[in-house]
């Protein structure tokens, strides 16, 4: 067998079973790997009505056929579960080296189910798999637990997936790391892992990945690596990390200032990649086989946080507990907050989102110091942000309410629709640090329809509008038109989102970093197909390849449909459609913009072949994709969704 290891490792923590399951040729071809394998397991083995914390629920770690090979940036891992934040389909994706190591140990996917009686970690040493006591590392920060496990196993070169205290405390947006600092941040996968009393999975693999046509495969890899040398996005990401976006975001008005009340601020450069690299950048570090190397390490040198050291931050990690909560004057506060969410093991996006939401409730008089346990939630109050991050992770005081996520917190506080207006969520998940009134209307559309909660920049990752202008001719190649490269237009966006969603899904099945295939377009879809075919020995055509992405996307959409979530829930936070973008800086390009979501949705539904009314994937589409059993599952639900009783329900989460 080429590319794939050919087996899934399943660990049942209740029964103590360790099972190795072969993955058939047909199965591998149907789902490719990573997100595809995981989505299939979640759809078929985790009923929508099951609690995300039920011991029977699954958490899946998926690798792709290219993981562990020399193809550019093949170090990603997809982690999937039923999300405790949204109650719907959830997954997240991380870089690092762990995924490659799992492949070398001989597995394409790890599925964990059941619940251990006491804290444990899983130790995978090639064929040998054991469940070990983790009582002594329970409560530890990932960085400390990582060191202890490596000492215990007497091997500092092993790679470990870990959760932090927030995951142990079932914070609904806890995340999971590998190599200490590479996070699968979103949808609360860390809390599901914590609910199983699982602290870590340590891996040592001594095998390799067999390549079907090595000569051709390495020629392709070398050619693609050459392309990165002069690639404009690679240069920006390598030099400044994803913080390179800060000044662009501020200019184009998508900087998340005070929970998106504004899109720009005069002091944004304080936290730009340019400033970061001059002041606190310790060193750069790339993931497995990555020619971009966007990762960085930060060491704070001055002020009250001097001496703090950590891996990161990225743009999306830094802005939520920075400008989104009104902190911009002293960037060291922002780096400190990012360090703290890392050590405690929480999604930086959701943490900043829920704190900024609470700040806006406070600003508008919906809550007072009486609700917050005396905390003064003024914008930019670093003492309070620092305190709240810790209180959320340990579920103390007001932090215990915020640990539930914005929409559940709004309900717990009895804030009604007004409270939900400021949570800036779709299907229970918060928008990342990207205001669609400036970032782009394609992104705005994908925020409404994303299949791991809405408000998700990584489902379509429609960089044809973000970085398309840097690659002249690219929009025409795929969409037939260069005009969609302009972010604030609806022109060509429905097809752009459809195309990019399928493309991104197949990228996640391969578990290749999207910075090589979307932000940067050094690796095009045809290149991906070429390295996939030469690696695996398959002879897939371009449409068959992209159809896998479409299959995965529709399966995930169907999971939401089973929760009675469809067309009525395809919305963006009302702020973006109702409030024109105010002016934050003189040079801002999107003053007055709102998001015309209604202009794009009907056409997008046509591309997807979603059923009018329900917005569920049509029976015809599901059958076309070989998902007849899914079509059967949805049969009776279509009528139910259109019933008056369902129409009356307000669904902020599931």
């Amino acid at each position, binding site marked *: 067998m080429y590319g794939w290891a050919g087996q899934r490792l399943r660990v049942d923590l209740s029964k103590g079973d360790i099972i190795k399951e072969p993955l058939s040729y047909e199965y591998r071809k149907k789902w490719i790997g990573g997100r595809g394998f995981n989505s299939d397991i979640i759809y078929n083995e985790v009923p929508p009505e099951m609690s995300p914390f039920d011991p029977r629920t699954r958490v899946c770690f998926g690798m792709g056929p290219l993981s562990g090979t020399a193809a550019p940036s093949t170090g990603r891992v997809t982690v999937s579960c039923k999300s405790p934040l949204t109650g719907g389909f959830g997954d997240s994706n991380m870089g690092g080296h762990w995924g490659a190591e799992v492949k070398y140990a001989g597995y394409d996917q790890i599925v964990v189910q059941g619940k251990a009686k006491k804290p444990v970690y899983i130790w995978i040493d090639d064929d040998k798999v054991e469940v070990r006591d983790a009582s002594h590392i329970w409560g530890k920060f990932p960085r400390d637990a990582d060191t202890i496990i490596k000492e215990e196993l007497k091997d500092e070169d092993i790679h470990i997936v870990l959760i932090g205290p927030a995951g142990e405390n079932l914070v609904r947006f806890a995340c999971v790391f590998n190599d200490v600092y590479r996070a699968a941040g979103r949808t609360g996968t860390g809390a599901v892992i914590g609910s199983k009393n699982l602290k870590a999975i340590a891996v040592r693999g001594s095998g390799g990945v067999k390549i079907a046509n090595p000569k051709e495969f390495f020629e392709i890899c070398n050619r693609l690596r050459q392309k990165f040398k002069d690639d404009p996005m690679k240069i920006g990401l390598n030099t400044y990390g994803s913080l390179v976006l800060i000044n662009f975001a501020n200019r184009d008005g998508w900087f998340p200032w005070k929970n998106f009340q504004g899109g720009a601020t005069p002091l944004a450069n304080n936290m730009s990649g340019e400033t970061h690299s001059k002041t606190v950048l310790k060193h750069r570090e790339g993931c497995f086989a990555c020619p971009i190397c966007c990762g960085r390490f930060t060491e704070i040198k001055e002020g009250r946080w001097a001496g703090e050291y950590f891996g990161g931050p990225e743009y999306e990690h830094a802005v939520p507990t920075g400008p989104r909560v009104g902190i911009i004057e002293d960037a060291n506060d922002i780096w400190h907050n990012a360090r703290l969410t890392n050590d405690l093991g929480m999604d930086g996006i959701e943490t900043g989102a829920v704190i900024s939401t609470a700040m806006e409730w406070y600003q508008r008089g919906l809550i007072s110091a009486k609700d917050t346990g005396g905390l003064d939630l003024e914008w930019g109050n670093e003492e309070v942000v620092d305190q709240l991050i810790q209180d959320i992770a340990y579920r103390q005081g007001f932090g215990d309410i915020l640990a539930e996520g914005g929409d559940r917190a709004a309900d717990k506080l009895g804030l009604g629709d007004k409270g939900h207006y400021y949570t800036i969520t779709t299907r229970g998940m918060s928008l990342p640090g990207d205001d669609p009134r400036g970032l782009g209307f394609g992104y705005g559309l994908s925020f409404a329809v994303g299949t791991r909660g809405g408000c998700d920049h990584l489902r379509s990752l429609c960089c044809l509008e973000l970085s398309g202008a840097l690659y002249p001719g690219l929009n025409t*190649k795929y969409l*037939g038109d260069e005009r969609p490269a302009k972010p604030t237009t*609806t022109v060509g966006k429905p097809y752009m989102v459809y195309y990019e969603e399928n493309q991104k899904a197949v990228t996640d099945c391969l578990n290749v970093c999207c910075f090589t295939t979307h932000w940067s377009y050094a690796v095009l879809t045809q290149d991906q197909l070429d390295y996939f075919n030469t690696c695996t020995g398959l002879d897939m055509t*371009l*449409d068959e390849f992209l159809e896998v992405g479409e299959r995965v996307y529709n399966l995930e959409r169907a999971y939401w449909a089973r929760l009675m979530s469809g067309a009525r829930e395809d919305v963006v936070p009302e702020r973006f459609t109702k409030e024109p973008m105010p002016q934050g800086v003189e040079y801002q390009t999107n003053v007055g913009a709102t998001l015309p979501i209604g202009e794009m949705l009907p*056409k997008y539904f046509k591309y997807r072949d979603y059923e009018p009314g329900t917005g569920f994937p049509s029976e015809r589409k599901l059958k076309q994709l070989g998902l007849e059993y899914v079509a059967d599952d949805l049969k009776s639900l279509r009528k139910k969704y259109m019933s008056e009783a369902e129409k009356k329900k307000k669904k902020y989460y599931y």
Partner: protein
Amino acid sequence: MAVMTKQQAKKFAEMSDFFIDLLNLLKEKGIINNKEHRLFLLTGYEKLVEHLEKNKVISSKAAKDAMKNGFTSLVFSLAR
């Protein structure tokens, strides 16, 4: 023979998102079949232009122009 009228081409050129409508029209006119409709929807504009050129629905020059100037050029070629 023209695949569409000049009036239709003009209407396409004014659309903010044209691709699925163009594919539908080409299918209706028998220029592409169901399978090809699906293939081009998945793979995008360039593959459609290549197909139209290969099947002599448009000339090589028109195909080149369609890739250089985008779909407006293509629909007016199809109206010729």
